[in-house]
């Protein structure tokens, strides 16, 4: 009875804490500007099923794709087991679903196989990150925390899967000993190999089985609460993020409606624009970005596929699309913390541009869309870069001198170079 109460309190506390932190993230995302992404629901649903559920964009790199699929499928399916653990924990039962008979044996057996593949994939991932020295996992933005974050996730998953397998092994041995309530249930294709390593006394086995059971469920609850602080949040947000992703051609940049009104008024003096609230052009801080940009930032799992295909980054420039996303997340989280501490409207004197992302970074972008194409969950770093450029150019008139010259040429000569418009048709005279 005591353990049931402890279990109940633990579960409720974990869910409550997660809800608080989850709602903070939603609140932070809502600090972004409005943008309508509710059109074409069927196409959006299909995109989500293909990209997030079907992992279609992972296939480009087959080795991590297969390993990632093991972890993904394993984690999703093994969570059915968590349902049983929950019921057992709350009602003091043991393997409550054993009544399913053959099906139960099949389920437990497949969970074991999946747990093993998850374990194996995580070990390989750990080696890739820490021993193979792969370039994709390095870079200026991969400081101590992002590196530790990635390792914590892998270690937690390895420990959770190990606990699950040891628990089953102990249970299996107790079943053969005919101990207490350890009824014969389940099949143990993986953990059977662990049985010879376990102690032989019933008491020691029960202690082992119970500790692993508690470690497994407490670990899952703790992991749940780690998510809001971690890049691993993508396991939840990959779905809405792909659902609300851009469906238009990648080359199409938004036409700013606020500018359209002013330009129309300039070209046609009789045009009276509808009253709109004055806002700034482009983005200086994370709150000037759209909620989709901010959701992108919380979805990013820092895999670095974007950065590894970025022509600027490949040739040694400071720009890294992954850093753009990480900076955006860090900044909007900071803005959220300021709201928690000081209330809405507090100005900490910082902004996304300059305090997080430098001018050198945004001006190195070729707008080639390679980062957008590469992202397995349809994150769009380019849009953030463009919004920052818009602020620098339209609000501050701060562009590199040669860019200003190019724009001056367009204004005066209707071409980005300093040629006379009267000479535009001269090409027809050459050979």
């Amino acid at each position: 009875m005591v353990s049931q109460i402890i279990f109940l309190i633990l579960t409720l506390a974990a869910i409550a804490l997660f809800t608080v932190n989850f709602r903070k993230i939603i609140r932070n995302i809502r600090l972004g500007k409005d943008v309508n992404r509710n059109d074409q629901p069927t196409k959006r649903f299909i995109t989500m099923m293909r990209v997030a559920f079907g992992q279609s964009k992972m296939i480009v790199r087959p080795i991590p794709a297969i390993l990632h699929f093991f972890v993904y499928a394993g984690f999703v399916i093994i969570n059915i087991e968590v349902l049983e653990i929950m019921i057992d924990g709350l009602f003091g039962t043991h393997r409550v679903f054993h009544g399913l008979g053959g099906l139960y044996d099949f389920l437990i057996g497949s969970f074991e196989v999946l747990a093993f593949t998850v374990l194996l994939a995580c070990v390989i991932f750990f080696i890739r990150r820490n021993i193979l020295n792969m370039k994709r996992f390095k870079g200026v933005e991969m400081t101590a925390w992002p590196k530790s974050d990635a390792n914590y996730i892998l270690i937690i998953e390895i420990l959770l899967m190990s606990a699950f397998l040891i628990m089953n092994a102990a249970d299996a041995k107790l079943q053969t000993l005919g101990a207490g309530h350890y009824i014969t249930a389940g099949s143990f294709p993986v953990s059977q190999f662990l049985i010879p390593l376990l102690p032989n006394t019933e008491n020691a086995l029960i202690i082992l089985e119970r500790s692993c059971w508690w470690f497994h469920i407490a670990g899952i609850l703790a992991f749940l609460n780690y998510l809001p602080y971690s890049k691993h949040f993508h396991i939840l947000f990959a779905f809405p993020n792909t659902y609300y992703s851009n469906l238009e051609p990648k080359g199409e940049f938004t036409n700013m409606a606020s500018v359209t009104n002013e330009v129309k008024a300039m070209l046609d003096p009789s045009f009276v624009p509808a009253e709109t609230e004055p806002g700034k052009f482009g983005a200086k801080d994370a709150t000037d970005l759209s909620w989709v940009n901010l959701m992108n930032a919380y979805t990013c799992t820092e895999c670095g596929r974007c950065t590894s295909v970025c022509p600027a980054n490949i040739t040694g420039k400071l720009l890294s699309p992954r850093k753009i996303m990480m900076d955006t997340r860090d900044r909007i989280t900071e803005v959220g913390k300021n709201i928690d501490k000081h209330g809405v409207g507090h100005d900490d004197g910082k902004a996304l541009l300059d305090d997080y992302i430098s001018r050198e970074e945004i001006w190195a972008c070729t707008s080639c869309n390679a980062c957008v194409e590469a992202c397995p969950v349809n994150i769009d770093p380019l849009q953030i870069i463009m919004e920052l450029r818009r602020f620098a150019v339209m609000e501050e008139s701060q562009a590199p001198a040669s860019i200003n010259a190019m724009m001056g040429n367009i204004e005066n000569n209707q071409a980005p170079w300093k040629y006379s418009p009267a000479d535009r048709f001269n090409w027809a005279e050459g050979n």
Partner: protein
Amino acid sequence: MAELMAAGEEPEILFWVGCAGSYDERAQKITRDICKILHHVGIKYAVLGTEESCTGDPAKRAGNEFLFQMQAMTNIEVLNAYNIKKIVTGCPHCFNTIKNEYPGLGGSYDVIHHTQLIQDLINDGKLKAEGGESFKGRKITYHDPCYLGRANGIYEAPRKALEVLDAELVEMKRCKSNGLCCGAGGAQMFKEPEKGNKDINVERIDEALQTNPQVIAAGCPFCMTMLSDGVKLKDKEQEVKVLDIAEITARANGL
């Protein structure tokens, strides 16, 4: 266009030349080759001549939405006044801007890039590869322009134009949706690159040269500049030619 209008006629298609195609000496050759192809197949086309003006693409990618929309609306006024319905562009940037960004500002046209036009003509049997220079067996590698490829998903049209040559088409490691930018997009064409350890066009040329090509095919005047500069820098001008799809097509047909 003004002359055609005065004569009370309408063109089948408007050829949007673009700033590079109008002023850049190298790109002017491509412009003339596109005209030769149009003439060869007997399409009634027109150009705006001095009435054409920058689409505003470089201004928009640089973040100057004001300048972009000023250019766009001025151009849309001209195009609508001439009742233009179909446009072929010589540049993927003009193509992307007019096709995707003009409709929201009141300018909706059927826009194609010249490689799409060439593909259509080949499919319709109006254009072949005969009567001119033979590319048979020659090694050609095609560089995907970002604003044609990733930006608009056009990968097959330019390759179709090369397939009819009976040439040996070799792909670079990074091609199609994974193609590497030449380094000119996003208004980079008009500025010095940021500090780094290599120029992007050199990175791309190194990759292109690994395929041992005789011809590097391009579909964009900016890529043309970047790739030609790269080949020059590598001192490979004699062995490797950088040619636009339109130039290759014109040559193959002896135009």
